[in-house]
């Protein structure tokens, strides 16, 4: 394309909304198939995949529904391609059966969840599928971190042969930040010898991918050993992948726990309060599953109160309570906060309001029993 100014020679960061940056990162990570169905605030992720994937030699399909989209991604993954899908919480609700089955089929799906508000913490971390299954769930705080975590998501999905979800929201999808998307080098991964890529056609040794642990030619299945092996894998993932960031928790009277876009407001408010000498701290789960329980417990050590800021009626607070285990009162300081369209752009997304809410936690009197 003709330009009146050549693109700058020095390494620079291009101004992109989160949706575009995530797609650039996915393509840099080798994603070559995407299927989705439009739904705000996820729509732009699909649009950017549609415009960029063909140039990268990939395929993007606007499916007829979320059910089809996840099925298409499943098929692409089975051939060994790096593939992804996504939606909002409503669309992902439709995909839940496939998400649990894909996990059992041990396929490396990446899911982009642009939630309306933060209403889908439970869906992301517990899921609505069947059986014992988990996905690694990353909740980036900003566009820069979303670029990093998207590339890591594709690597970890292949490493564990397990779905990995990027948990974003309206703000992440639509906030423009200047970022540089450079392909990351991760440790080498084994060849996908399980992929049904046609390479063994006619040899009598063709492969079979299914969600019940049955191999081709096997006389029967051994569900207990299959499920136990998956559970052992999930235990290993839980031990290896928990990530968190914390600040100012050593001497904090109140520790604020927040994730994703809202954590950016919490971090801002906590820093402002600390500059005024108020003893508050902040801990942010970067992974929602595995929940960084140790990091949260350590941050809460010595705190008079743990304040959970989330933009919903109280979902992550369950995991915070389990992490703190009664050592300090855990109180909600977030709540339902949305615009009239239900996209989650509510009054809580305001530094002064977040500061006021932290102030309430500081001023609370201990309940007398």
């Amino acid at each position, binding site marked *: *394309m003709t*330009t*009146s*100014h050549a*693109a*700058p020679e020095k390494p*620079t*960061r291009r101004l992109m909304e989160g949706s575009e940056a995530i797609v650039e990162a996915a393509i840099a990570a080798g994603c070559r198939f995407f299927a989705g169905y439009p739904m705000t605030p996820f729509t732009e992720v699909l649009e950017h995949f549609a415009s960029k994937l063909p140039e990268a030699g990939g395929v993007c399909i606007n499916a007829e529904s979320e059910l089809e989209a996840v099925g298409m991604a499943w098929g692409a993954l089975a051939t060994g391609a790096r593939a992804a899908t996504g939606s909002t919480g409503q669309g992902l609700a439709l995909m839940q059966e496939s998400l649990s089955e894909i996990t059992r089929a041990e396929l490396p799906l990446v899911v982009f969840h642009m939630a309306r508000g933060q209403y889908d913490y439970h869906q992301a971390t517990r899921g609505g599928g069947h059986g014992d299954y988990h996905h690694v769930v990353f909740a980036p705080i900003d566009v820069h971190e979303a670029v990093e975590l998207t590339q890591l998501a594709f690597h970890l999905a292949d490493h564990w042969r397990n779905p990995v979800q990027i948990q974003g929201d309206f703000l992440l999808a639509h906030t423009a930040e200047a970022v540089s998307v450079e392909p990351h080098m991760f440790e080498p991964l084994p060849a996908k010898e399980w992929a049904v890529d046609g390479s063994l056609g006619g040899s009598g040794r063709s492969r079979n991918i299914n969600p019940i642990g049955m191999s081709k030619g096997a006389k029967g299945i051994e569900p207990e050993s299959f499920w136990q092996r998956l559970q052992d894998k999930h235990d290993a993932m839980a031990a290896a992948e928990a990530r968190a960031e914390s600040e100012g928790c050593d001497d904090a009277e109140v520790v604020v726990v927040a994730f994703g876009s809202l954590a950016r407001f919490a971090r801002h408010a906590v820093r402002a309060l600390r500059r005024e000498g108020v003893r508050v701290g902040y801990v942010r789960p970067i992974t929602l599953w595995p929940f960084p329980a140790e990091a949260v417990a350590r941050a809460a050590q010595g705190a008079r109160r743990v304040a959970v800021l989330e933009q919903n009626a109280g979902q992550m607070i369950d995991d915070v309570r389990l992490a703190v285990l009664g050592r300090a009162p855990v109180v909600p300081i977030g709540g339902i906060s949305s615009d009239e369209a239900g996209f989650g752009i509510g009054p809580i997304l305001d530094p002064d309001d977040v500061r006021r809410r932290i102030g309430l936690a500081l001023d609370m009197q201990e309940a007398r029993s």
Partner: protein
Amino acid sequence: MSLVESRGTVTVAVERCKGCELCIPACPPRVLRMSAERNALGVPYPELLPGCTGCGACLLVCPDFCFEIYQYEVPVQHEVPS
């Protein structure tokens, strides 16, 4: 000579520009001007002068998605006649 700092820069898809000039007043530091040259459509197109902040106002206002915005890690200094 005096120094003008650019914190960012833009690229313009010149051949897509229809010369509507919406970007000219939209630019907060007023560093876009219409060219003396004309593109294949026969219209002038925006050119960038030193002093861009990389804010993206032109990108938002352009009906034809002609702009890409870049921000420098380290601002660039330009010498301009005072």
